[in-house]
């Protein structure tokens, strides 16, 4: 599951290479959402700081 952003972004890059710009950007957007979701799943520890 952690590899989803890499493969999604690689797909977007491959789509870029073949000239499918809009689909590539859509693949990038989905990968970014996946990246942020994975970050949320891993950011579980409380931070020992005072803001």
């Amino acid at each position: 599951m952690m590899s989803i952003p890499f493969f999604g972004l690689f797909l977007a890059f491959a789509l870029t290479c073949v000239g499918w710009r809009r689909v590539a950007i859509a693949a990038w957007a989905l990968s970014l959402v996946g990246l942020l979701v994975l970050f949320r799943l891993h950011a579980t520890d409380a931070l020992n700081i005072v803001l």
Partner: protein
Amino acid sequence: MSITDIPADSAAIRTRRAFVSPKRSHILNAIGLLAICAVLGFAFLDQFVNGDLPCPLCILQRAGFVGVGLGLALNLKFGARPSHYAIAILSAMAGGLISARQMLLHIVPGTGTYGDPFLGLHFYSWAFLLSVVIVAGCAVLLLFDRQFEPLPADVAPRRLGTLAIVGFFLFAALSLGNGASTVLECGQGLCPDNPTSYLLLDKEPPASTTP
């Protein structure tokens, strides 16, 4: 037709006078893509040569850099556009957010660190600094509007160029390699917080033979 026959405000003349012309923008983006490849390659080298397994947040920071590279690759393939710089900026912000979180985890002295430092800073601190530099660099490049002008009719259509082609090959190998390495390290689920080995390469302990 000599250069003096072209009207002073023609697209050809304005493009040639531009500080960041489409051609210069292309070169800058190619150098940027190679720089991203250098960052990803150095992290990969550290992983395999020094045996420093990337933590989950480190993996996600690498993905942020791959996103930045994609924005630059879009510029190289389709010509510079503000939307491509936006992709690079948003990806750098995502990576920067993750590295900032990791810095805050270890910001209190005595709370430990992850991995070995490089030139006095840990990789997550470098990742944060680089994210800031990428956002600032893209913002500076966005100031130069003439790079976005369509190429004049008398200029040959855009080609990738050697730098960009090398960058494309390296970028493809590094993004795919990071994906494969992450599968080996984490398997199908989430990564352990402090990985010590590649999950898929671990051999099962031998089964007990006692009856």
